[in-house]
């Protein structure tokens, strides 16, 4: 009997690993090995024809920290995150509450909120170009009606990043709304009835009952929004290319530029490692605070 249990266990182990191996190979090739290789290559200097690359330990990192552009980009990305995360969450919440309540034209409202989600970021950027173009764009035309001067939204350092931020919020709020909608539908009806009987206003009900119940969803969305604040940079290619004078440059765009426009892979690697570090912290937060609630059942 014992022997058979042992045999079964061994069989399971072999099958388990066999089933896993294709995915394990792929993940190793395209996630784990590149992560390690990125770290390794961040420790070497850029090789030129005259001088082969050599081990320079953390010099690439200290170069980065001494590079004023790097700090501009970090600051931009922090502002980008600090605005897009809370604003898109608040808008998503408002959208979900509205799309879930009894309002006229609810179908249209839901579709309108969600549609940007299915568009490519590149296409979204093209649509917004139509708003931002100085002189011809929609925003300038509307401003013109009120006698405001023409503003080059994408062309001046004070507004370029904000123009990019607005496109990001527009793109992701509808996506986050979906998660809130799902969570709202799991809130039992009797809570609403009970608060009605108690004479609570709709605002009190929302604030004291709905919002606390939505907390796990909010945390889940927050993690997604944080990842997006690193990942969503496609529109930069169309709208600003990081300019003017780096005013709207974000980290991932800078990594791309470093590696594929300036051909400086070691510094790009060093920056990648820093980003991965931040993402790992986000991952840890997710594991410790929310995973139990949103993932493992």
């Amino acid at each position, binding site marked *: 009997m014992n022997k058979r249990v042992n045999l079964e266990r061994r069989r399971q182990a072999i*099958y*388990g690993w066999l089933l*896993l191996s294709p995915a394990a190979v792929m993940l190793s090739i395209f996630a*784990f090995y590149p992560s390690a290789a990125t770290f390794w290559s961040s420790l070497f200097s850029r090789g030129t024809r005259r001088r082969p690359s050599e081990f320079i330990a953390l010099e690439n990192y200290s170069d980065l920290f001494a590079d004023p552009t790097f700090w501009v980009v970090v600051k931009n990305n922090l502002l980008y995150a600090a605005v897009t995360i809370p604003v898109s969450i608040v808008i998503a919440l408002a959208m979900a509450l509205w799309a879930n309540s009894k309002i006229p034209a609810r179908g249209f409202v839901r579709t309108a909120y969600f*549609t940007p989600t299915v568009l490519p970021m590149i296409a979204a950027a*093209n649509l917004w170009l139509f708003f931002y173009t100085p002189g*011809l764009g929609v925003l300038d035309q509307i401003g013109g009606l009120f006698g405001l001067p023409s503003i080059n939204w994408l062309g001046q350092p004070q507004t370029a990043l904000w123009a990019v931020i607005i496109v990001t919020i527009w793109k992701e709020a509808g996506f986050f709304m979906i998660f809130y909608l799902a969570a709202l539908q799991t809130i039992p009806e009797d809570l609403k009835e009970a608060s009605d009987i108690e004479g609570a206003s709709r605002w009190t009900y929302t604030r004291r009952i709905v919002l606390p119940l939505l907390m796990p969803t909010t945390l889940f969305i927050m993690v997604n929004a944080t990842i997006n604040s*690193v990942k969503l940079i496609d529109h930069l290619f169309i709208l600003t290319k990081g300019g003017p004078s780096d005013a709207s440059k974000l980290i991932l765009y800078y990594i791309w530029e470093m590696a594929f426009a300036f051909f400086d892979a070691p510094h790009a690697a060093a920056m990648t490692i820093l980003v991965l570090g931040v993402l790992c912290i986000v991952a840890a937060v997710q594991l410790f605070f929310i995973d139990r609630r949103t993932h493992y059942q």
Partner: protein
Amino acid sequence: MSRLGTMLEQAGAILLAVIWISPLLFAFWAAFHTSSDAVSFNLLSPWTLDNFRTAWEGAPWLRYFLNTFLLVTIVLIGQFFFTTLAGFAFAKMDFPAKDFVFILVLMQLFILPEVLIVENYAMVSRLGLFDSLFGVGMPYMASAFGIFLMRQSFKSVPIELHEAARIEGCSLLGILWRVYVPLAKPTYLAYALVSVSTHWNNFLWPLIVTNSPDTRPLTVGLSIFGAPENGVDISVISAATMMSVAPLLVAFLLFQRQFVQAFLRAGIK
């Protein structure tokens, strides 16, 4: 809640919806008008298809469409294959170090392929896949997200069905194929919708890995077409944009309920 307040709120909801959809509507309108009419908002100006004609002739769109279509197909097939096997292993097999490996896999949720562009590019070149659709698709195939979804879905299959199939003499892969996969159909559908719309829209990685019109997907083609250096006017860009989002957008409008359900299922599980 006063009546006035409710009405204000409803107005707010509808106003937000109008604002949210307006970029798309403007572009749609501009695509069918000459650029001078479009920028002057001459609502009575005549409709025209010239922009589409100009846009269509300006780039090998048919090829781009085909590339994107092939790309999402390749990615989806690859994802189904890898995530089904791995998800099944995590859901129903018992092997040493399983939990540890699972956490390793979940880590990939945060090691975004987008961030690893430098080394992934080197890897794809080394494998001889540069400027090929396989090169674009491969980093996404063993998706941790997909493995997680499949694991959750397979976990909910009652073990009795598994046992019954085994007593009937079904092999392990046979059980997976005949019992688990059919029962997980909704998950596959949800995953497919999310995956297709993600990869239809993906840009940065394809931009890096493709280098010729023969492999370029729509997003990359659109960005090159719309580049300011090319000096195309705004109506033509709108037409090209409308053209490239049309298939996904129409599919979304037709199957809206399924789309939303899919995103929900994929996100909430």
